């Protein structure tokens, strides 16, 4: 069923009782051509592009929880592509271009709002890095500009640009095409669109083992029985190392809790996204009026989807440094997700030493913005059994060859 204005009217007349489920809940089949492990945004996008771009529809997405319950529904919804290195910026820019047509593609409003993202500079070195990154972005065809503190104050009246601040704001980079998207809608939209192309989305189905014959995968063991497949794509974020160990693989990844926070709803006060690397916090305002705030990861490895109090305090300090006026705003909720942090702060989208086993992981704290692009290149990697040129540099071998893509700190905000 296609969503349309006419459909809204028709369903209003029947008291909205006749809406169909957005996706089916089928029993798992015995065998699929491709199994995607992990029903987050990246996994669902992979399945969608497998069907749409590569005509592979005998595909299952296995999700241990429910759709939208993991990191896809736990992030701070920021979308941008202003990365420093060419490899990274081209990958994120591909994603940005897909975002720009995503609501139409999926026939689902993902509420993508290109309200701009400011990355603040607080020191002379920050400003030099910002100028370098803006130049690099422009050379790669990505919109970016350097803005002065005066311009920032004009665009964002509530921000404190006083030179007397402890960490005074000297300027910023601005990516006008960047912004936010409604994160649950992204999961639901991809799930519905993939389902309509014939893909089975199987929730409450946890993978407990990867079956192999020699060096090739033959399927997976799950809490709902054995499922056969010759190709398995794993996109499980924080649990990447756990699933990798099922195939005796070791990954250069450590899992950390990352927290996010929302305040009580306020009237519109902030119509853009503000990020600061130096004080390390980022903030935007949701359409419901809540301030959406994020900051750094908890330092220690963790799989519990909650974070520590000192990290909360740090995030609030960072936001109040930028916006002292928010000091009396009450916070409403906080939660944690488990992010898979890679040594060079770039993802691994790669074949593995095991035939038919593909991994997409290591997105760390910055995966949401890449959701469509990640699915697009991962679908190509699985379908063709070789990487697309956009994700070829993001292979697992780079940790042996030394061809790392060091986006730590370079990527506008530290991951």
């Amino acid at each position, binding site marked *: 069923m296609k969503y349309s204005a006419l459909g809204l009217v028709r369903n209003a007349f029947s008291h909205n009782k006749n809406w169909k489920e957005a996706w089916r809940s089928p029993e798992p089949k015995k065998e699929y051509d491709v199994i995607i492990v992990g029903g987050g945004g990246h996994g669902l996008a992979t399945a969608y592009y497998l069907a749409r771009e590569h005509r592979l529809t005998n595909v299952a997405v296995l999700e241990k929880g429910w759709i939208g319950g993991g990191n896809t529904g736990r992030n701070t919804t920021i979308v941008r592509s202003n990365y420093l290195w060419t490899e990274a910026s081209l990958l994120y820019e591909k994603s940005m271009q897909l975002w720009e047509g995503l609501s139409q593609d999926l026939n689902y409003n993902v509420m993508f709002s290109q309200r701009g993202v400011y990355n603040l500079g607080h020191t002379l070195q920050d400003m030099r890095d910002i100028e370098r990154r803006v130049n690099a972005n422009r050379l790669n065809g990505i919109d970016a500009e350097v803005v002065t503190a005066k311009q920032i104050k004009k665009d964002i009246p509530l921000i404190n640009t006083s030179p007397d601040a402890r960490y005074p704001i000297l300027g910023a980079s601005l990516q006008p095409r960047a912004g936010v998207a409604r994160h649950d809608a992204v999961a639901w939209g991809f799930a519905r669109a993939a389902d309509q192309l014939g893909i089975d989305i199987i929730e409450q189905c946890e993978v407990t083992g990867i079956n192999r014959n020699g060096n090739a995968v033959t399927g997976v063991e799950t809490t709902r029985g054995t499922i056969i497949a010759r190709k398995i794509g794993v996109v499980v974020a924080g*649990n990447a*190392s*756990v699933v990798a*160990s099922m195939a005796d693989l*070791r*990954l*250069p*990844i*450590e*899992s950390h809790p990352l927290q996010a926070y929302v305040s009580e709803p306020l009237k519109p006060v902030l119509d853009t996204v503000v990020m600061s690397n130096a004080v390390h916090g980022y903030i935007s305002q949701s359409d419901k009026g809540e301030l959406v705030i994020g900051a750094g990861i908890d*330092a*220690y*490895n*963790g*799989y*519990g989807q909650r974070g*520590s*109090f*000192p990290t909360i305090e740090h995030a609030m300090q960072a936001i109040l440094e930028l916006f002292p006026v928010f000091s009396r705003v009450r916070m409403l909720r906080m939660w944690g997700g488990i992010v898979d942090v890679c*040594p060079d702060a770039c993802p691994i989208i790669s074949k593995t030493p095991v035939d038919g086993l593909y991994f997409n992981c290591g997105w760390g704290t910055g995966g949401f913005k890449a959701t469509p692009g990640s699915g697009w290149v991962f679908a190509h990697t699985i379908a063709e059994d070789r990487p697309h040129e956009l994700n070829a540099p993001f292979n697992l071998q780079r*940790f*042996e*060859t030394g061809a790392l893509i060091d986006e730590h700190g370079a990527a506008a905000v530290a991951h």
Partner: protein
Amino acid sequence: MLLINCPWCGERAETEFSYGGEAGITRPADPDQLSDAEWADYLFMRSNPRGAHKELWNHAQGCRRWFGVERDTVTYRMSRSYLLGDGAKD
């Protein structure tokens, strides 16, 4: 807030400590003899388990000494702290 047991100073708040990652990774005695894969394994690959984890902590704002902790990465419960180096069991 984690309460971390420093073997020298006793239980202190998490904010006094800094984290050092997985314990028990020893620098290879003769790096020239390693293959690229073995060197990558030493430098980058981590076990990152879901459950029991042996890890390093430094009492950065106390005695400034390193020690090992066994912690569950799901419940975050720290079962024991231990000394590193010569004479230590781990």
